[in-house]
């Protein structure tokens, strides 16, 4: 265990009483509670943390926040491995295990760093210009090599063992960022009673107050921070959410946020998710996300040890780590000097200060006081060193070049407002010439921007903005706002800045985008080749496209392009940002919905009974339906299905049909309504009878079919297919509410109320007789085909009985209230036992409907017309109905449209498959000879061969003709004979039995 050589003896917001052991690349280290992985690595003197994307250059830690482009690691291991994790935002925990990435075999010795040697050729867009010859080499050789080299970390790939949640929140005011501006805003609004949510991505609230030594009201700012947090926590309508990143702004005041519930723990405790994604509905929001510091482009600016000055300050003041023995400061403004002052305050050595601005006596005096050499008007030309910064080459105001040795170079070039969320709704930031940065331009309705995020960089401005905007937001949402109290900032603030976008004249690569290895030369090349619009620049060079989304690079890239093309920065373009603000785990946004919980499953009231019977279930849209009921000794599903079919045709079987959509349609105009939505007639249907109905979409193609029964003069019960139940309901509501609101129609789905079972087979009536109460006449005369009437069962339980048949057998459907579904199945099994009653599933159901030539989902595929399906004659010519006119269009009535017939193999031993296409015998298997396709097939135990339904040009006129059923994707090519689609009992004798 190392001794944390760079840890200061005292100070910092860390808990030195809680040491945390962790490992990086297999070496063990120790840090403290309150550390980030980055601060703990720096405390231990670890400088080299990663390798860059393209050139595999050694990289260290640049920042102390979410903008980090360099220090990306693989965190955790095994199934919990998280690639590309920014060490600067990882909260240290005991046992943390991290590894460097994008290097082989090791971080210190990375073979792909030879890319650096050929790097002169690997300029922006080089791959567009080469790898074209010979053509076959691209995919065989070049691309695999590129792919292997590209990418950063390694994803686990295997199932994520943690779980995730979603949550929804509502508030008057969402405050994004818990720094001084955000805290002041939350306090102002919270005190007035508004419902406030305050989110901060950090695990500790305070923002820059944690990193800077400031005074508020004559006392250390940390005291104000503590008091403010305590008050906020006491307010019942204020919710403070640390470790929560607001990542995106969506329409109408909806914000996406992700809460890292357990990422600071080795693994989530029982009953807690790893992360939770929030959809926050905010009437108002204040963006107080602060600002991100800007690096300077100069040769070697990526050496480990080159660090943002504000980050150095954060490590010193917040984490008690001084990440260098000998510091050089390169600054373009006053802010950098604060870093020098803070280093000196903890006893660190500031060897030199290079201030790009011209000489100034006050600065000279301050440098003297700090014991630092001052190079006013100077610049850092280059940084040297490999895995660790060794020194810098500087140019003074006179142009003289000299060398300084140092192990830490703090760079200060001003800050960019963290305005990302303001551009998520297509808002464009505006250039502020005075501040030399982009500030929020068009800001979405309901959002205000406070403090540094608005380009108001001083602490006084942050506190003032927060208090004012917090009060205003409270007033806007109608809460009696209390006037915000003025909180004086009592230490002096200066904000002078004259930014330096790049320093030319150094040796070696000068990086604009660290993570994607985009250099200033790449930007120049883009300019030379005409990729001058900012989007071309980004896309051609990949500037800003890495995991940091260009947080530290976009502006410098724009500035260099501006310089190259003789334009100003705003003329060159703006920096806009797409959501998310920082990358978001896919699992968090999926929440609970994965595996079996991906989508809800619907179970019939008879499900448990079917399970008890040994059913195999199949996904049928949202439902799980019994597919077949295997019995011991049955070798395959076909054996089982054959048995079930035979049992039905020989005796009786039962099959759950509860899943069909059932819509109660009442009202004086119910019959008229059905006339308009179905192609066939309904007004003449007597009460107590059912009828098959077919409905079209308005474009003339078939939408759905089903049996609808008239329960009363103005009361119908419509059934829909299982798959289309929801769609049909919506369609009917459209027809009623939008097209014909004048009709008295009252509709509601009753699908869930009824358990419904088909009882089919010659013994169906006898079976039913044992279940339906005796006073109901079930004789053929008393309850004829298509009768549909209420009955009672089980001694007075209200039920509905329909004499309808999908199987072609004597058959009924019996519906009982769902609570009795289970009992119904048991009662039927008992009543049918003497006849060998057999439960059957959707497979046997399918076999029997194919044997009878009934159309189902495979035929009702949205591409077929009523005529195609042989149902054209159902279309009434006497009334208007949905789809009537469009069904009459030229192309829908052409004679050679494929239409519905049956098919049987000429060699009865051959198997048919749905999806095969029909080709004339002796014709070439080409598209021009395609005559149609097989829609459904099944093995008929009745016929002892396979049979098929399908659509073929010429249809019924070709019965008796032979064609090929061509199925090359399954190596099938079977000669079939076109036949009637009704394979069993074409006269319908069994139906009426």
């Amino acid at each position: 265990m190392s001794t944390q050589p760079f840890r200061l003896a005292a100070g910092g917001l860390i808990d030195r009483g809680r040491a945390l052991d962790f490992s990086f690349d297999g070496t063990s280290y120790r840090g403290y509670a309150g550390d980030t992985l980055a601060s703990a690595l720096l405390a231990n003197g670890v400088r080299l943390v990663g390798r860059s994307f393209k050139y595999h250059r050694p990289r260290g830690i640049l920042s102390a926040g979410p903008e980090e482009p360099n220090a990306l690691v693989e965190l955790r291991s095994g199934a919990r491995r998280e690639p590309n994790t920014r060490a600067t935002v990882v909260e240290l925990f005991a046992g943390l295990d991290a590894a460097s990435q994008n290097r082989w075999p090791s971080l210190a010795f990375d073979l792909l760093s030879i890319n650096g040697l050929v790097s002169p050729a690997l300029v922006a867009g080089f791959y567009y210009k080469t790898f074209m010859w010979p053509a076959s080499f691209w995919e065989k050789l070049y691309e695999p090599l590129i792919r292997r080299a590209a990418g950063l970390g390694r994803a686990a790939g295997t199932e994520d063992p943690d779980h995730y949640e979603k949550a929804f929140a509502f508030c008057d005011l969402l405050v994004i960022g818990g720094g001084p501006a955000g805290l002041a805003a939350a306090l102002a609004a919270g005190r007035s009673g508004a419902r406030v949510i305050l989110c901060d991505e950090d695990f500790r609230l305070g923002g820059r107050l944690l990193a800077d030594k400031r005074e508020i009201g004559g006392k250390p700012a940390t005291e104000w921070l503590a008091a403010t947090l305590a008050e906020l926590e006491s307010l019942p309508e204020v919710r403070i959410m640390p470790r929560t990143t607001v990542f995106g702004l969506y329409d109408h005041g909806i914000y996406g946020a992700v809460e890292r519930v357990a990422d600071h723990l080795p693994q989530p405790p029982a009953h807690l998710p790893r992360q939770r994604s929030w959809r926050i509905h905010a009437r108002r929001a204040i963006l107080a996300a602060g600002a991100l510091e800007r690096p300077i482009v100069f040769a070697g600016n990526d050496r480990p040890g080159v660090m943002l000055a504000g980050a150095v300050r954060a490590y010193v003041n917040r984490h008690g780590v001084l990440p260098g023995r000998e510091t050089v400061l390169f600054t373009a403004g006053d802010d950098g000097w604060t870093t020098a002052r803070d280093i000196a305050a903890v006893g660190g050595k500031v060897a030199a200060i290079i201030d790009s601005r011209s000489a100034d006596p006050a600065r000279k005096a301050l440098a003297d006081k700090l014991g630092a050499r001052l190079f006013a008007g100077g610049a850092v030309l280059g940084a040297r060193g490999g895995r660790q910064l060794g020194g810098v080459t500087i140019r003074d105001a006179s142009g003289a070049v000299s060398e300084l040795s140092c192990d830490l170079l703090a760079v200060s070039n001003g800050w960019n407002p963290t305005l990302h969320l303001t551009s998520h709704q297509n808002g464009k930031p505006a250039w502020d010439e005075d501040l030399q940065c982009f500030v929020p331009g068009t800001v979405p309705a309901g959002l205000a921007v406070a403090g540094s995020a608005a380009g108001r960089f001083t602490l006084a401005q942050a506190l003032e903005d927060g208090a004012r905007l917090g009060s205003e937001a409270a007033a806007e949402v109608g809460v009696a706002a209390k006037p915000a109290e003025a909180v004086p900032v009592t230490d002096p603030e200066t904000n002078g800045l004259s930014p330096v976008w790049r320093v030319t004249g150094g040796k070696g690569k000068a990086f604009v985008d660290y993570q994607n290895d985009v250099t200033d030369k790449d930007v120049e090349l883009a300019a030379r080749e005409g990729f001058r619009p900012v989007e071309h620049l980004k896309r051609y060079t990949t500037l800003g496209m890495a995991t940091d989304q260009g947080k530290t690079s976009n502006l410098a890239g724009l500035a260099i392009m501006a310089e190259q093309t003789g334009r100003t920065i705003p003329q060159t373009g703006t920096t806009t940002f797409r959501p998310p603000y920082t990358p978001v785990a896919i699992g968090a946004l999926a929440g609970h919905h994965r595996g079996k919980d991906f989508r809800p499953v619907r179970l019939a009231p008879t499900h448990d009974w079917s399970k008890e019977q040994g059913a195999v279930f199949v996904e049928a849209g949202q439902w799980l339906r019994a597919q077949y009921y295997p019995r011991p000794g049955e070798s395959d599903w076909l054996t089982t299905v054959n048995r079930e079919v035979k049992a039905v045709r020989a005796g009786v079987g039962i099959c759950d049909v509860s899943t069909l959509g059932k819509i109660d349609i009442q009202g004086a105009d119910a019959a008229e309504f059905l006339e308009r939505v179905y192609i066939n007639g309904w007004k003449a249907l007597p009460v107590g009878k059912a009828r098959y109905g077919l409905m079209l979409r308005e474009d003339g193609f078939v939408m759905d079919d089903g049996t609808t029964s008239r329960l009363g003069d103005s009361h119908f019960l419509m059934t829909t297919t299982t798959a289309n139940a929801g769609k049909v309901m919506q369609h009917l509501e459209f027809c009623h509410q939008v097209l014909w609101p004048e009709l008295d129609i009252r509709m509601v789905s009753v699908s869930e109320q009824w358990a419904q079972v088909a009882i089919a087979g010659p013994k169906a009536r006898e079976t039913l007789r044992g279940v339906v109460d005796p006073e109901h006449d079930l004789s053929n005369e008393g309850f004829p085909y298509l009768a549909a009437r209420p009955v009672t069962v089980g001694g007075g339980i209200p039920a509905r009985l329909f004499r309808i048949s999908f199987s072609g057998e004597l058959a009924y459907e019996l519906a009982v209230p769902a609570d009795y579904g289970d009992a119904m199945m048991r009662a039927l099994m008992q009543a049918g036992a003497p006849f060998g009653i057999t439960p059957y599933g959707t497979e046997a159901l399918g076999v029997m409907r194919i044997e009878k030539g009934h159309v189902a989902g495979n035929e009702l595929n949205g591409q077929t017309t009523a005529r195609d399906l042989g149902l054209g004659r159902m279309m009434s010519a006497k009334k208007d109905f949905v789809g009537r006119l469009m069904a009459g269009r030229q192309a829908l009535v052409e004679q050679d449209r494929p239409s519905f017939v049956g098919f049987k193999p000429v060699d009865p031993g051959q198997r048919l498959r749905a999806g095969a296409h029909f080709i004339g015998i002796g014709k070439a298997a080409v598209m021009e000879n395609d005559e149609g396709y097989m829609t459904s097939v099944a093995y008929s135990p009745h016929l002892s061969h396979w049979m098929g339904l399908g659509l073929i040009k010429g249809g019924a006129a070709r019965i008796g003709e032979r064609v090929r059923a061509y199925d090359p994707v399954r190596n099938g090519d079977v000669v079939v004979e076109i036949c009637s689609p009704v394979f069993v009992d074409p006269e319908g004798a069994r139906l009426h039995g």
Partner: protein
Amino acid sequence: MAETARSWAARGAWAGIAQAGQLGATGPAGVTATLLDGFGLATLIAAPGGAAALSQAIVARLGIALPAMPKIASSASHDVIWSGPDQWLLRATTREGFGSLLEALSAQAAVSDQSDARAALRLSGPRVRDVLAKGVMLDLHPAAFAVGDTGLTSIAHIGVHLWRLADGPDGSVFEIMVARSMVGSFWSWFAASAAEFGCRVSTGRG
């Protein structure tokens, strides 16, 4: 609907899905869930222009008026719950006499029995809103969703109908109704969401 003794055993929507006991975290339960069963439920839809007459009929029979807004109105034995324009759910705590009530009302409304169509759950406890926030896309803050408010919405891709009843001994009380066929998936969401706070599950009559 059942009014006389039957030879068939009824099996409620929760059967095989959930049972009494403790879910998730141990210790004092943050949420209390009661699985409701045995209630009568029906959809009533008024004829065009007939809502007032229907409401009068309900007042006459049950002493409660049909809410014109998304609200629930309750008597000791019945609730009427807004479920769409000119549409309500009528709930009775017991199915005794429910069939004849529906028959009587069918002159004023399109009546569809839904007694077996829904599973219902009553929720209370100090963390009840935190659990619901994991699925409900409505603002359930006491000021935004008052006692007697109801909403049709969805949870975890499952359509639900929920409302807030008068506060009980452990604070706010909500009831949720969900389609019977989806109650298994609903319970999977609920159990996962309530586990953080611990949930005591019991059974009761609606």
